[in-house]
């Protein structure tokens, strides 16, 4: 299997081709084809993972183009990192695709959804397998395209269309830096293959400040894709897409591609003088981890809370990679993929039932939706790092690495961990505890929750709150099992996915204890405010008025960007348009006009009348005579 791993991406690609052309005529209106594609790909990925654990490796290359006299070689690479990612993407994507059968039911563009989903799966597998910057960049853009198409899946809604546009352009700004980084690497090494690049670094052919610059430029792409500060603005808006999209693309896989990119090109960062590039990665990650968590505190849209959480957790991954916690960062990527996919799917199940995203209109759902509640809780505990759920293992490893590396980073991360528990506790209590506060009775399942037009539209009066169908709850349960038990795989994972030359710091019970206490403290604080209401949230909001406003306005970053783009960009664009019309083209027309006027003027020289010519001759003679006489 390892030597034919390139088949894995082609399975969902074939599904995409079938569905986009013959969607309505396929079994399950394309859904079964899509599921078949991704499940086969997942099985193949697991087979590859098994073989790679057993020691198999593969690097299959071929000449993509001949430039000048040298071939430009590219190919696919199967190693522990890519095998792990393949398996994660395969399993998570399979479950989410199955879940979508229930969630997307009744949507008028149902086949198209599965077509895009399959295209995304192809691109993501392709990204993971790339052994070179060219394929990686190609897949990188393709996952971005799929993200764009799926955020804007309900494109008739202006909010969704705008969110799609914002996501594509914001990430594309990051990709601008990534592309320059790639060109810089090629300039110095003359190859796009990671292997050649790393060898050049090892041999000393590529180093010094240029390497740091190249690494940071490459990281620019990761900042955009993984929604790190300052290119984070697109991810919360991306929640306008259908919930399975948020789960797969904007939580589990594509946004994590930024962390994967750093891991894949780790030697670029590691060998930059004094680990400078890694320090940059760590600080961007650490700041994002805390910054995103603060915004998650005041958000009322259940999916947006999870989106801020995703940004924050991606920050932890970056932080882990930046403080030499290579395995820790990657392990957090894997565990996060499972529990965050779970959280989104469970949130989708809730939205499916209550037909609103607003936490303020939920409440008491634990009784009506027990499977959703218990699985969501498992995901939340995993996310907040409560033992023995999966998150505690990966997050603690990152905190430990940060603690041994740089205390400031550790403080950022620990504060973020406290806030993580706080916003998740808030979310859980708002949604699942107390009484149902919805303005209208919710939809029964099978009404498609009005996905065709808007998932937020009002439900049908009279229908009762209802657990989701089993096609949705079974994937939740499976993901919950992963979220509970996956953490125990930490030891084998660390030995499997590792970077030579980086050793994890020795385990420290003290740091672990502090992390767990911080997490528990966060839950308790949330309970104090939102469950026991010892300090009601209204009082807090009043006491911290300016801070609250700052958080709700998202630190005014979106406003700043809007002002730059519309306030400065808009006039500049209009000016360019006017300049072209009146100056550049004006000069052209002026030339034409001058030529024409000269022609019109000179016309009187050639009137064609004999009298005029005779008059001119006579005047000429007069002039000559006068001049001669005057002489």
């Amino acid at each position, binding site marked *: 299997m390892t030597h034919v791993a390139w088949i894995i991406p082609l399975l969902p690609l074939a599904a995409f081709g079938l569905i986009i052309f013959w969607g309505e005529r396929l079994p399950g209106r394309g859904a079964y084809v899509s599921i078949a594609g991704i499940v086969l790909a997942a099985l193949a990925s697991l087979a590859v993972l098994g073989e790679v654990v057993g020691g198999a490796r593969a690097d299959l290359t071929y000449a993509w183009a001949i430039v000048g006299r040298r071939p430009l070689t590219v190919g696919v690479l199967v190693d522990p990192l890519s095998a792990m990612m393949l398996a994660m993407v395969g399993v998570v994507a399979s479950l989410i695709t199955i879940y979508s059968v229930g969630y997307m039911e009744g949507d008028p563009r149902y086949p198209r959804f599965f077509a895009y989903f399959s295209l995304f799966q192809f691109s993501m597998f392709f990204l993971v397998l790339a052994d070179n910057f060219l394929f990686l960049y190609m897949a990188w853009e393709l996952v971005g*395209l799929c993200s764009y198409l799926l955020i804007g899946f309900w494109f*008739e809604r202006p909010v969704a*269309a705008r969110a799609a546009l914002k996501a594509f352009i914001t990430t594309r700004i990051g990709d601008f830096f990534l592309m320059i980084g790639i*060109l810089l690497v*090629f300039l110095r090494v003359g190859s796009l293959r990671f292997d050649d690049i790393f060898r050049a670094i090892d041999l000393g052919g590529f180093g010094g400040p240029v390497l740091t610059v190249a690494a940071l430029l490459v990281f620019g792409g990761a900042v955009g894709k993984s929604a790190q500060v300052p290119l984070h603005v697109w991810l919360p808006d991306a929640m306008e897409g259908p919930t399975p999209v948020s789960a797969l693309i904007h939580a589990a896989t594509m946004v994590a591609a930024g962390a994967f990119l750093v891991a894949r090109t780790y030697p670029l960062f590691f060998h930059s003088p004094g680990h400078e590039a890694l320090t940059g990665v760590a600080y961007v990650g650490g700041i994002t981890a805390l910054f995103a968590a603060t915004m998650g505190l005041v958000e009322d849209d259940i999916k947006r809370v999870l989106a801020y959480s995703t940004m924050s957790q991606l920050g932890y991954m970056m932080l882990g990679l930046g403080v030499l916690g290579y395995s820790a960062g990657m392990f957090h990527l894997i565990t996060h993929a499972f529990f965050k996919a779970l959280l989104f799917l469970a949130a989708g199940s809730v939205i499916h039932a209550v037909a609103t995203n607003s936490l303020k209109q939920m409440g008491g759902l634990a009784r009506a939706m027990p499977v959703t509640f218990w699985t969501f809780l498992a995901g939340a505990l995993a996310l907040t790092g409560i033992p023995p759920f999966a998150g505690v293992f990966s997050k603690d490893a990152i905190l430990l690495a940060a603690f041994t590396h740089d205390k400031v980073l550790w403080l950022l991360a620990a504060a973020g961990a406290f806030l993580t528990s706080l916003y998740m506790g808030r979310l859980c209590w708002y949604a699942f505890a107390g009484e149902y506060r919805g303005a209208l009775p919710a939809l029964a399942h099978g009404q498609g929750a009005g996905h065709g037009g808007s998932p937020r539209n009002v439900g049908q009066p009279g229908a009762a709150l209802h657990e989701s169908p089993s096609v949705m709850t079974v994937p939740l349960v499976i993901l919950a099992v992963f979220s509970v038990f996956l953490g125990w795989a930490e030891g084998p994972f660390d030995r499997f996915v590792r970077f030579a030359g980086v050793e994890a710091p020795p385990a420290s019970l003290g740091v672990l204890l502090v992390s767990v206490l911080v997490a528990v403290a966060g839950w308790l604080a949330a309970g104090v405010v939102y469950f026991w209401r010892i300090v009601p949230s209204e009082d807090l909001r009043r006491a911290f008025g300016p801070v609250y406003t700052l958080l709700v306005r998202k630190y005014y970053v979106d406003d700043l960007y809007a002002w730059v783009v519309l306030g400065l960009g808009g006039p500049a664009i209009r000016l360019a348009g006017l300049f072209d019309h009146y100056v550049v083209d004006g000069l052209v027309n002026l030339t034409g006009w001058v030529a024409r006027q000269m022609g019109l003027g000179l016309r009187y020289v050639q009137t064609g009348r004999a009298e005029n010519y005779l008059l001119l001759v006579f005047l000429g003679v007069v002039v000559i005579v006068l001049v001669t006489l005057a002489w």
Partner: protein
Amino acid sequence: MSGLLSFVLWLPVAGALALLVLPRERVGAIRVTALATAALDFAVSVAAAAVFDRGHADRMQLVEQAAWIRSLGITYHLGVDGLSLPLVILTTLLTLLCVIYSWRVEARPKEYMILFLLLETGMVGVFVALDFILFYVFWELSLVPMFFIIGIWGGPQRVYAAIKFFLYTLIGSLAMLLAILIVYFHSSPRTFDIIALIHQKPLAQDLGLAVLAFWGFFLSFAIKVPMFPFHTWLPDAHVEAPTAGSVLLAAVLLKLGTYGFVRIALPLLPGAFQQEAGIVAVLAVIGVVYGAMVAMAQTDLKKLIAYSSVTHMGYVMLAVAAAASIAGRGALQGAAAATLGGATLEMVAHGVITGALFFLVGVIYDYRAHTRGLGDFGGLGLRLPVYTGITIVAMLASLGLPGLMGFVAEFLIFLGAFQIYPALTVLALAGVVITVAYFLWAIHRLFFGPLNTRWEVLPDMDGRERWALGPLVAVMVAAGIYPRPLLDMINLAMVNILSLLR
């Protein structure tokens, strides 16, 4: 095999003559004759590609050479290599698609078809001519039919646009004629043969004169490309031209300029080009960024696409200038080959992609909405799924999305150019970001949001339109995924051209 190129070259004229004797009432026969001629011409050009030895694409093949005016050293000399063959096929393919698309043209179909066939001969002639006089004749010949196409079948401002187009490019042509004469009078033995002159390099010893000749060629080619600041004829011509005219204008006529730079200016006057390469590169990058900004300011879809051509041709010219600037230096030959190969591929890619985009504007404008204002649409994705899908693919190809043809070309251009002009390449990449923004914004305004009630009854694309666009989309995807066959051929030709620069 000789005679194949002459056949491709003159067949459209024969078809035009046949149309001439057909009575104008027999519209059906006129259309069928035009279609048969264009289809046969395309088929023969594909046959020519089949007999073309792609392993030796660096050599001129299918060469035909015959004395024409012996006393002046003028010959009838044709041939194709890896540079010109793809452009010839691009020309015959797009002419065929234009004839298919124009099936429903009702105003003077006879003259319309005759002019398109004559235009085809002019365009193919420029790509296959290897004698300067022949080259010049075809260069001018391509101008005349387009003048009438814009002036007769164009929009409300057609006369203004046609005259502007004609005069502007004519001024360039005259500069080229002077440059040709400078080269000719310094050659010994006196010849107009392009290949012979490239090997002779008559002005190699006289840099001052070579620079003068270079600017002569430059003016002509740069207006045709068009490079900033000579581009303003283009939006006017595009907006006023009928759909098929816009398609050929963008897809093929602009390539005459870039082809001239690669085929003639670069190998014939390497010293002068090297000296002036910096200026050309700066103008190219201004074209990229400025063209993208102006494109963003447009509210007319056709104008937006016209300005996107300025940007894309800017990439090509950046690549050509980069290759010129390292003429004769061994170290960066690989970079030069990469960027120049990318430039040639971009010529073909832009022809396919922008050709498709102008067809798509026609689909919505000619027979459906009768407006091109971006603000007039919205939500078409709900009503016209096939049209929406194809347009989005074409626009994504134009903005350089991987997996589609434009990306391969742009990537190679930047990969090579960055090694020669890093700062300018970074600026050009910033232009790419703006390009992404305005195309996505255009998609947003056309297809997304709630459906404008004015368009509730628009029909989706019909069979004829799908047939005109299907092949182009297929080429975009195929060449985007597997560019090797095309790229290897182009690369050999580029290596050969670069080896001539000493």
